[in-house]
């Protein structure tokens, strides 16, 4: 059995750990509120953008000559995966969930004999992926300096993706991120952004639009923007998810530390009592033998 002194030290150390996790939880909760707000505020933009593009692609006259960003290169040989993770740890399963999702996708791509290229956003994802897929990672971006997700950063990633696409470096692009549902649930998502997948129902309204300038020109200008927008949306969702995940992880840690302190305190009291009893017995038996 551990000595009284050891127990005392352990209790003190668990208590100080608990203080740290509690503080982190509070910080995460405050940040979460902000991140969640901006994720919700950012949704109308990406939704509207999607709508416009949906309407446009339905109205496009010449499907064969549609911009490549919309219809793809016609083959699916090289896949580019943009894996978006956080820059900081201690956020529960947040990063590993994305990585798990991404890895199963990677395995499928490689099984099918296709070429794989990876861009990691956020240093944690890079750390976890570089052991196995180190040679596939072509770029690693990290926005450690910027406090909140902002459009400027997303645009940088978007432009890079488009540049690579224009250079013919890949055919299909998928982004991986965590969608924020609520504080305890974040759903890892794989969203294909090039070529654009029309999710959801075809917009039934056959109402024709007037375009100025013509459809093709609008599409060529709009599609790159849409990519940045989708990446930005992913970043916002991700940052809300990160804080949520961290908050619940730290909440658990605080609770576990509390339980541990209770258990250790009981053990401490017991062994103190045992020591006293032992001493008493010794004194009594000593007195009896006289």
């Amino acid at each position, binding site marked *: 059995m551990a000595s009284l002194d050891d127990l005392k030290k352990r209790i003190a150390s668990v208590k100080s750990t608990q203080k740290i996790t509690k503080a982190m939880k509070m910080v995460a909760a405050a940040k979460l509120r902000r991140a969640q707000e*901006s994720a919700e*505020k*950012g949704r*109308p*933009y*990406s939704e*509207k*953008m999607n*709508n*416009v593009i949906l*309407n*446009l692609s339905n109205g496009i006259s010449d499907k064969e000559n549609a911009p490549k960003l919309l219809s793809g290169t016609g083959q699916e040989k090289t896949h580019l995966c943009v894996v978006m993770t956080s820059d900081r740890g201690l956020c529960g399963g947040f990063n590993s969930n994305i990585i798990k999702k991404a890895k199963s996708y990677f395995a499928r791509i490689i099984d099918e004999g296709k070429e794989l290229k990876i861009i990691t956003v956020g240093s944690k994802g890079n750390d976890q992926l570089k052991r196995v897929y180190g040679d596939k990672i072509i770029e690693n971006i990290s926005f450690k300096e910027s406090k909140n997700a*902002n*459009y400027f950063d*997303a*645009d940088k990633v978007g432009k890079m993706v488009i540049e690579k696409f224009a250079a013919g470096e890949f055919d299909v692009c998928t982004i991986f991120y965590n969608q924020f549902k609520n504080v305890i649930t974040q759903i890892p998502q794989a969203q294909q952004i090039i070529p654009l997948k029309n999710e959801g129902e075809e917009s039934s309204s056959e*109402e*024709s*639009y*007037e*375009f*100025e*300038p013509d459809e093709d020109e*609008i599409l060529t*200008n*709009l599609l790159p*923007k849409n990519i940045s*927008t989708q990446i*930005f949306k992913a970043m916002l969702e991700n940052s809300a998810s990160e804080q949520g995940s961290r908050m619940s992880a730290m909440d658990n840690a605080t609770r576990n530390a509390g339980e541990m302190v209770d258990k250790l305190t009981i053990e401490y009291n017991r062994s103190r009592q045992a020591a006293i009893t032992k001493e008493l017995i010794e004194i009594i038996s000593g007195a009896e033998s006289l």
Partner: protein
Amino acid sequence: MSEEFKVEIVNPEKSFLSKDDVIEAIVPAFEGEMGILKDHISIISFLKPGIIIIKSKEGEKKFFVEDGIVEFKNNNLSILTSSIYNLDEVDKNRIQELLKAAEEQINNSDVSDQAKFLIDQKINVLRSIN
């Protein structure tokens, strides 16, 4: 019958403005300024750098945009833009900064003619605000 329609301006960060009593909106569309009244035909167009004017009963509101897309459908005008400034609130220094950045850009030789045209537009508009 009322002559009002709904305008929504959104940027990536948030919904910038939402008004449902707009009488007329003037937007700097790609091929010239475009005034939109109620029951305008459905249209999608681009914005070039310029001033958006939103007219309602309470008066006019002016915004400076650098780029964006407008969509008008069923008396709903959606303006998507990544850079918009309310002219009543914007800081004069910010305008100066934008102007300076634009002037630097245009002196850069490796921009296409189209980009040059847009930057030129931007400079003109910014000068007029100033």
